[in-house]
């Protein structure tokens, strides 16, 4: 799906003066369009709140997320001092949710960053140089994509050993093809553009062309993809933890909390329900924000 980015392209609409004034600051234009999208704004607000809450967790609650007090187990939500109740080991659920938010969001961002870095690098080189490297890397990417992604992640964790870090690496590896594909497609069309040819004629090095001219123009699909992907990565990481392959007890992590509660669905459904709602909200927010960003960065897609 080759795309061009409009806001950075000065040739479009160059003959009307009005248009030229708006073109002065493309970032502002994107921000203006994003602001108009109510859903995206809502998503963004929720995310800011979640991130603030989890960063400030130690100041918001007096409990230790891992303190086991078996005498206080399975207290229902609404109990004084435990607003959202306690889990099967007497740990405060609100505290664990807040600390768990740190882990989940951090893992989501980190995994996306890793996947994006390698994916973009492979995509850039494959799209720009074509030829043997392109064939080799794209077949490798095809192989990665041919595996069901959860199975592949589980296989990687089986090789590395369970743990939050390894789960993050595994889902990041699984995420690489997504970026490599997007970037390669964009680069394939960009490299044929006149301004790139002009650079080549001027004698610019490949490195300069790739990172100074092609990458900035390929940026908006990457940003959109990454925003949508953070949500997916959070779900994948929680899924791995739910299966016992990711975060290990007693770490407060939403997937672990979900799994902790599954034996108590009848007597204390909130143990699983609350982290489930938290995951749902955060992932939904990332998706709303991602959709909004896509529309803002590339308004033509909306039609």
């Amino acid at each position, binding site marked *: 799906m080759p795309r061009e980015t409009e806001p950075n392209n000065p040739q479009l609409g160059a003959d009307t003066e009005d248009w030229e004034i708006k073109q002065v600051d493309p970032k502002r234009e994107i921000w203006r369009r994003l602001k108009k999208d109510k859903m995206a704004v809502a998503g963004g607000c929720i995310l800011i709140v979640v991130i603030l809450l989890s960063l400030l967790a130690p100041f918001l609650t007096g409990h230790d997320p*891992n*303190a*086991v007090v*078996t*005498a206080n*187990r*399975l207290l229902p939500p609404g109990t004084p001092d435990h607003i959202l109740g306690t889990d*099967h*080991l*007497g740990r405060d659920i609100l505290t664990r949710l807040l600390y768990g938010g740190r882990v989940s969001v951090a893992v989501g961002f980190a995994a996306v960053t890793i996947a994006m870095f390698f994916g973009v690098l492979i995509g850039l080189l494959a799209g720009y140089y074509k030829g043997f490297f392109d064939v080799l890397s794209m077949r490798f990417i095809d192989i990665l994509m041919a595996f069901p992604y959860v199975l592949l992640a589980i296989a990687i964790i089986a090789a590395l*050993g*369970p*743990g939050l870090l390894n789960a993050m690496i595994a889902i990041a590896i699984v995420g690489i093809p997504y970026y490599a594909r997007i970037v390669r497609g964009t680069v394939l069309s960009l490299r044929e553009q006149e301004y790139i040819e002009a650079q080549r004629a001027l004698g610019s090095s490949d490195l300069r062309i790739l990172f100074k001219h092609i990458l900035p123009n390929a940026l908006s699909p990457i940003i959109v993809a990454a925003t949508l992907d953070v949500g997916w990565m959070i779900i994948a990481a929680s899924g791995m933890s739910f299966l*016992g392959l990711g975060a*290990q*007890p*007693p770490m407060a992590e939403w997937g672990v909390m979900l799994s*902790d509660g*599954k*034996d*108590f*669905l*009848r*007597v*204390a459904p909130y143990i699983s329900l609350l982290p489930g709602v938290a995951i749902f909200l955060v992932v939904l927010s990332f998706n709303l924000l991602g959709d909004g960003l896509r529309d803002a960065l590339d308004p033509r897609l909306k039609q």
Partner: protein
Amino acid sequence: MKGMKTVKRIAFILILGLAVLAIAGCNGEAVDSENTIVIGIEAEPTSLDPTQIVDYNSSRAAMEMYDSLIRFKDGSTDLEPGLATEWDVSEDGLEYTFKLREGVKFHDETLFDAEAVKFNIDRQIDPDHEYHDTGEFGYADTTFGMVEEVIVLDENTVKIILDEPFAPFLGNMAMHSASMVSPAAIKEFGKDISQNPVGTGPFKFVSWDPGQEVILEKNEACWRGAPQVEKLIFRPIKENQTRLTELEAGSLDFIVGIPPDDLQRIRDTEELLVLEQPGMHTWYLALNCYRPPFDKKEVRQAANYAINKEAIVNDILKGTGIRAVNLLPPLLWGYTDDVRDYSYDPDKARELLEESGYGEAELTIDFHVPESGSGMQQPVAMATAIQSDLEAVGFKIKIQQLEWGTFLDKTEDPPETNEFIMHELSWMGDNGDPDNFLYTLLCGTQWPPKGFNGGFYKNDHVDSLLLEARKITDPARRIELYEEAQQLIVEDSPLIVVDHETQIVAMKKKIQGFELHPTGVFRFDKVTIQ
């Protein structure tokens, strides 16, 4: 017009929905025939060949199909005649002669005789036996390790010669691993015998659909008399909550592994019956005595004092087990509670840790935990509580969860390569003899990969007591030896025992006459359905 269309559409959706419901409904009741019991077990059986079975999910499904020469009586570990009608032990305790029941046939119509007994024992212990390679016999050494030779005297008499006296041998002859499998079937199926079981028991094999169910039907020709129940269906369901829901919904008739927090509700349910009875079970932490920090007795004792076992039993397990002070379950003879008392005492734990001289580097430990497993109760919740207690006194504990099969394999690694410094495990008694706990789990000769002493405990004095106790037959003297051994062991604290689980099963009230057995294996042969 538009209104009409909407109505039609809604009607269509409703009909579709009803059809789906009807199909789903049929599916759920497909097996609800009158004389069938559907049993929910905790995991897929690994094998239906009794000589290869090492876990309860397999033995519970398989043992309905088999008999051994000697049987445990209903409800106890006392012995009664099985496929042997009488037996005789020589003065020196080395020769056992069994007179076999005549005219008993395997499910494949072949005759059970002395040759079959010899075949079944030799297959497990003789590496040169033609059919030794048809399986892996995890219990062979425990059950028949002391057997020197099996001699067929005549068609219905067999003599077993031991290389040294072994007190619990008759009990071993009643263990699941001593069950008689049809030699003809082993010859026919080879390695596949574990999927094509043929025994002499009250039920015979119909089918095994992996991941779905094992189906057995009644053996009309059983020498003990045909059972009342026509069919037994064993379904592996891993999630405790799911299994319970299926019992309540009616698609299962009988389940194990009821979550403690739901137990009271089930007890109060009109149409369900809950049976509870102490079992021969112990849940423990194994500490690796071969390596720091648990090579020092002080550190092992400190860990033992640090853990609040009382709280685990009362709060997490909700009293579905009793607090353990000793590896032996209290209902086993030879048990003593006159041992060092490790009641919760974090201050004492801190003192002992300081004495040991180990610092943070040594006290940082990986704690290996299975996600689930037979007899493991609530492995992760219990591990998390233990971790929290240990950290409170100065340990640094990192929990590592492993899948049950992988976990069990790793406990069997030899000391040099064994990566487990601390792991949790449980043991269920097989033959009603203290030897089956103390010697098997703690004797210095039983280090993995040969035996089950996964903490690599070795105390020469304890070893001499345990080795002597298994050779003599005088019960009073054996009790003395075991009591002394238990005191020494608890003092050394190679294992931290937490609880003895109560056996709990829940069933529909239509099942009548079911009794739990201390060995944990089920017996449906005398059960009737109302």
